[in-house]
């Protein structure tokens, strides 16, 4: 029981899970779940009490019982006590103060990351303003490698997302040409296929591999299909670089996605054994998003942001190359408008980085949310200023397969120009070789006979 008296009103919260939910900045998903604060004052009362909770409490009291949930078991069993030692005497409020101080250097933040549980990260984020989330995220350094180096300071990568509603190879190749010319694709060239039939996916996988090999692009490919289908592809001898899966923060929600930790373990071993990375072996790609546990009716009364942070405990077990929150995809019943989407994205980026993950963001919205491209511009600028690892590159920001709007190839160029952000170094060198950037990484005017335009002919061969 947590209790505080403010003026003439006494606020009581029956347990830690309730306190966390009530302290969460407003969002529609927590309203839908019926767990949000009923007044502005109640929300601040909960924040005040949460600030006094010792970090140790999160090791002693689980929001979702250990016996009932394998994600909780993973969080508890993988906790690194040595990394936790420097912060074990702090309350949530002290932890915020320390994170913002000059004392909390990049090196120290890296050291403690495996001692921070999702609930600790979520709790401290709830008493941080947007600028706090940005300041601390920017201090965290997470570097991953497969065929290039992702996450170096002063750099930002982009996924090239060339989706097509009927998986048409020429349509996909055309979008790849467009994206590469604009300098996207150093995070991954990743297709969300419309189909889940193995023969179709094999064709897509071989197309990407052929393009990467023939043009010697220092990047990796991914077909974003279910993990079991990807294992099928591997068994068919497909050139699988990265294994993709959507994950969630509770066992029940993971089951809704048709996955478990043991299945992910098996898939991880399968893709790792292919050994296709040239300079590193980070070979997993995960996507997450606030609201998935609630939409699977598997949130156990835990707020959607805390459920999201729990995904990162699952992700970090596999040393992924890439993890991104698909922040506005789920719809207005979980994140209502541009303000809520922005807040959620900054929280996710902060929690992910603090826990040691290479967090990127699909800065996006659906047409039934109260958001537009201006909100995405704002969020892109905030996240890039906070050191986001990568963003999406979708032709003209309009994904014609998934029917939502994300960031475009142009948007990536905009933010590079505005903030002076460079590509992954190996990719930058490759772009220079193909005459697309100068020796300072600045984009050059396009020329008519650029060899890359010929990529589209691969399909006809």
């Amino acid at each position, binding site marked *: 029981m947590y209790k505080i008296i403010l003026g003439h009103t006494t606020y009581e919260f029956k347990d830690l899970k309730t306190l966390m939910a009530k302290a969460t900045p407003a969002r529609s998903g927590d309203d*839908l779940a019926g767990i949000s604060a009923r007044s502005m004052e109640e929300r601040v009362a909960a924040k005040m009490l949460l600030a006094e909770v010792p970090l140790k409490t999160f090791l002693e009291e689980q929001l979702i019982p250990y016996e009932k949930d394998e994600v909780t078991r993973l969080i508890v069993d993988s906790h690194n006590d040595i990394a936790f030692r420097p912060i074990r005497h702090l309350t949530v409020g002290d932890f915020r103060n320390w994170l913002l101080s000059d004392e909390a250097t990049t090196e120290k933040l890296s050291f403690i990351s495996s001692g921070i549980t999702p609930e600790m990260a979520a709790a401290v984020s709830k008493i941080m303003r947007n600028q706090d989330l940005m300041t601390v995220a920017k201090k965290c350094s997470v570097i991953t490698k497969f065929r290039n180096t992702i996450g170096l300071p002063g750099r930002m990568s982009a996924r090239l997302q060339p989706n*097509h509603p009927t998986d048409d190879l020429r349509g996909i190749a*055309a979008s790849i040409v*467009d994206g590469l010319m604009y300098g996207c694709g150093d995070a991954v060239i990743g297709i969300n296929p419309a189909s889940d039939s193995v023969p179709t996916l094999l064709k897509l996988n071989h197309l990407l591999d052929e393009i990467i090999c023939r043009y010697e692009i220092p990047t990796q490919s991914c077909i974003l299909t279910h993990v079991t289908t990807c294992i099928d592809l591997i068994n068919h001898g497909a050139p699988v670089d990265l294994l993709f899966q959507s994950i969630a923060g509770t066992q029940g929600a993971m089951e809704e996605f048709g996955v478990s930790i043991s299945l992910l373990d098996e898939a991880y071993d399968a893709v790792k054994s292919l050994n296709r990375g040239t300079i590193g072996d980070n070979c997993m790609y995960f996507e997450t998003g606030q609201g998935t546990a609630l939409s699977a009716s598997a949130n156990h009364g835990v707020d959607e942001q805390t459920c999201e942070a729990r995904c990162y405990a699952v992700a970090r077990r596999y040393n992924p190359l890439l993890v991104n929150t698909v922040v506005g995809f789920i719809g*207005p019943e979980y994140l209502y408008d541009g303000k809520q989407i922005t807040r959620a994205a900054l929280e996710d980026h902060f929690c992910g980085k603090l826990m040691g993950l290479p967090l990127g963001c699909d800065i996006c919205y659906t*047409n039934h949310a109260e958001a537009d491209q201006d909100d995405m511009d704002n969020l892109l600028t905030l996240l890039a200023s906070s050191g986001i690892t990568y963003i999406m590159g979708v032709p*003209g920001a309009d994904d014609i397969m998934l029917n939502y709007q994300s960031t*475009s190839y*142009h948007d990536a160029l905009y933010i590079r120009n505005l903030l002076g952000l460079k590509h992954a170094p190996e990719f930058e060198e490759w772009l220079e070789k193909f005459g697309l950037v100068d020796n300072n990484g600045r984009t050059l005017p396009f020329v*008519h006979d650029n060899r890359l335009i010929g990529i589209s002919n691969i399909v006809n061969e």
Partner: protein
Amino acid sequence: MSDELSITEEQILQHDPWEELRQFTDARIALGRTGGGLPTKEYLRFSLDHARARDAIHEPFNPEWLKGRLESLGVESICLESAAIDRHTFLVRPDLGKRLSQKSIEYLNGYDYKGADICIVIGDGLSSKAVHKQSVPLLEELLPYFAKLHLTIAPIVLAKQSRVALGDDIAERMHCKCVIILIGERPGLTSPDSLGAYITYDTFRGRLESDRNCVSNIRPEGLSYQRAAFKIAWLVESAFSIGKSGISLKDNSDDLTLQTAEMLYYQKLS
């Protein structure tokens, strides 16, 4: 100075020299650029598409107008509403859009419908625009199939602030074996008026999504009315013959070429 300031066309707009690749995809490629930004024309084209998609969601549902159009086809209809009282509530409370309002429940109690094989619901969903545009032309193609299959149809229900699962509530209260809900899909930028059809056999409140079959992207630029009607009829007939719908009913209506399948179908019916 004024010479240096003279602005040429190349300075204000850079074309992307792979414009011929546009023939392979509807994706927004080869848009050109100005600095890192979109050319004015492309920015405005995107704005127009987004505005249309937004308007499609917020366009008020007009059941009276649909009722009139159905009457002119000689089809009877009734108007109901979900428990979501307005568009905002509908968007943030998916649970309320899945059940009838108290007023509609009382109306159905008084209506006391005795039952039929099929209940067709037209629900606004996320795009009234889609429903206004596509539902009646689709029904013109679809209804003759049911007549040939000797399946009886309840009066068509026009349902306001409706999610897919509202059909379960309606069909249960109207004692129908199978519900087909025609509903406005979430609008994309290139498809603000796309209609979806969900078929659920032996339906009742609390049916799972995996118990339904779906035919989506119904619009002249996507799945045509003729093909959609054929697919829906094929699924309904199959559902009645195996006694279930959902994941255990595989949509094999595309196995033959459309023409042949349709002809076979008519042959089988006659």
